């Protein structure tokens, strides 16, 4: 089994690299691949890649990553269909959509999802998020300059309990198709959500499906969930 970290030199702005470091610790038997910007992504040529991670980037980084990834959009589509797991967090989610509108121009996305992103560098949204992914409660954080408008038929990653979704008023956060999860939520998402990680480990067919330091991770998660559920606490 191979785990691929796409563009680590760009996609690690907010502690996001921890997702892959943690996963590596949880699945020591897996091979870990880092794909730099100008290399061919491993998922495009190797059927043994079972998980691909891409993290949030600077706005300049996003402009560099999109053209690098565009030639592999079809390969990505094929791998999603095959059931390969993808996790795109923060603004890397926007790359999977149709377009990203900035103050200067519009960037063409990979077209995997019917999403239009709008970026406004004068408005930053910060806040915690509590939502539901299948039967699991997700706790995480938002910090972003942009919002996405989803087209009809787009399935969300998580329904919103507290916080905001893809855009103001959207009842769901992120996107999902088969095992592709895209989400604006950022940071060490897998560390913050041990039950999500457990589910991922099962999907990947890891030898050990209990995440590392599961008890301690669950204690931290439970406390955070209580805090996020407390309506007296502000989102930011």
């Amino acid at each position, binding site marked *: 089994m191979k785990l691929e970290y796409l563009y680590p030199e760009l996609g690690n702005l907010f*502690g996001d*690299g921890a997702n892959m470091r943690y996963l590596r610790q949880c699945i020591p038997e897996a091979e870990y691949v880092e794909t730099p*910007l100008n290399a061919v992504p491993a998922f495009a040529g190797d059927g043994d890649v079972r998980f691909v991670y891409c993290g949030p980037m600077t706005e*300049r980084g996003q402009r560099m990553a999109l053209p690098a990834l565009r030639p592999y959009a079809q390969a990505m589509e094929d791998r999603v269909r095959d059931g390969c797991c993808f996790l795109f967090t923060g603004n890397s989610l926007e790359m999977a959509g149709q377009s990203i509108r900035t103050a200067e121009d519009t960037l063409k996305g990979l077209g995997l999802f019917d999403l239009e992103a709008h970026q406004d560098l004068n408005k*930053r949204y910060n806040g*915690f998020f509590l939502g539901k992914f299948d039967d699991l409660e997700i706790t995480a954080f938002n910090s972003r300059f942009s919002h996405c408008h989803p087209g009809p038929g787009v399935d969300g990653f998580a329904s919103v309990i507290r916080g905001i979704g893809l855009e103001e008023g959207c009842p769901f956060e992120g996107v999902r198709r088969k095992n592709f999860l895209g989400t604006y939520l950022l940071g060490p998402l897998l560390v913050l959500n041990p039950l999500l990680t457990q589910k991922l480990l099962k999907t990947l067919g890891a030898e050990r499906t209990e995440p590392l*330091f599961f008890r*301690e991770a669950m204690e*931290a998660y439970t406390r955070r969930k209580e805090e996020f559920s407390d309506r007296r606490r502000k989102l930011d």
Partner: protein
Amino acid sequence: MKGLRFSLALAVGKCAQFAMRLLGKKATYLPGKLALRICPDFLSRIGKPELLIGVTGTNGKTTVSNMLCDLLIGFGEDPVSNRLGSNIDAGAASALLEAASLSGRCRRRVGVLEMDERSAARIFPGVKPNFLIITNLFRDSMRRNAHPEYIASLLDRYIPPETRLILNGDDPISSNVAKLNGRVYFGIDPLPFEPPARENLVVDARLCPICGEPIQYDFRRYNHIGRAHCDSCGWTSPRNDFQLISADRDTGLMTVLDNDIWHDYRMPADAVYNLYNAVAAVAALRTIGYSPEQIAEGMEKLQVVQSRFWQEQIGKWELTEIMAKGLNAVACSRNFDYVANAEGAKAVVLLLDDVFDEKSSSENIAWLYDADFEFLAGEDTVQVLAVGARCLDTRLRLLIAGVPAERITVVQQAKDAASAVDLSQCGKVFVLYEVYRQNQAVMVRNAIAERMRKA
């Protein structure tokens, strides 16, 4: 013509300053805030000193501003400054109000304004410093600063074209802002007493600022501070105009190469980050026109305020308290590095939770995973105490960093931290605290000191 609004803002600001002083307050924020509320372009209209030096950057700007003020006072100046107060637009406005006559004219010749790097858009349209020092740009609170490239882009956009820049040539991010502005660079050679650089989780300058290809570091001091070049387009770190070439801890002297001539100055402190602050101050004063001899004489008397660092030997223990700046992964990592380099068995008390989020929200703990907690996994770090509301998150972070579970102590409340330190195992105790937890840190430190004295 300064206008009615301005006159009203000036009068209200002055009255507020006077009234607050009567009440024993510092008046370094509210008067400026009121003036800006009444006259939004107050900063453009109020009189400025003939020579204005701005200081910004992620880390070190307060220290550099204080050094400059003290040196200028030593040179017989009476600089207007915001050293006692806020570094955002209201702080700058309060400082300029203080120095203004009733007509709004500035009564001082020189000014030093510390400027929050995120506030560039609100300060620079009105305040056009003759010189601007940028100490460095690192990741800081993601909520306020997003990322360093974003802050660099704000500075690019708002730094006035006439401002001459004094830049850290060892920082590939801040040394590349506002490329059309006149500039000088400062930096530091590798020093013999520096331990080898540790691997950092965060290196924000990995790609060439010109062509976007990966850059190679010829020398990396920490994070992205060092000397780098790009094989693809030929970009290199700039040649520094003011280069600290040696620092002798025995004599307390540092040598700065300046236009190919070296000059000795007294080191105000010997930690490398403070040497960057000192060489930034020297570079600024030399660029303004002070002679090396004048600066050297001034630096003989200079003292860095040590409120952020406290150390005492108590019996067989050494107790150290360091301000670590929560939410700022790089600042914390520098302190973890310092702790890791200290010889002998040590215990570390972590008081790093954000005060405001603890009260009203829930802290975004993503920054914990940018900070190098791995430095605390060495065998001689015999105990790490995760203290406060986020203690369970900190414990998990420490475990993932490789700190064995038996060395981690979870403490829910700061008042219980001192008694949880196992003094029987260590010869050194470090208390690392977030800036707004200084009172708690002092309480913990005093309680530990008492235990040490009684032992």
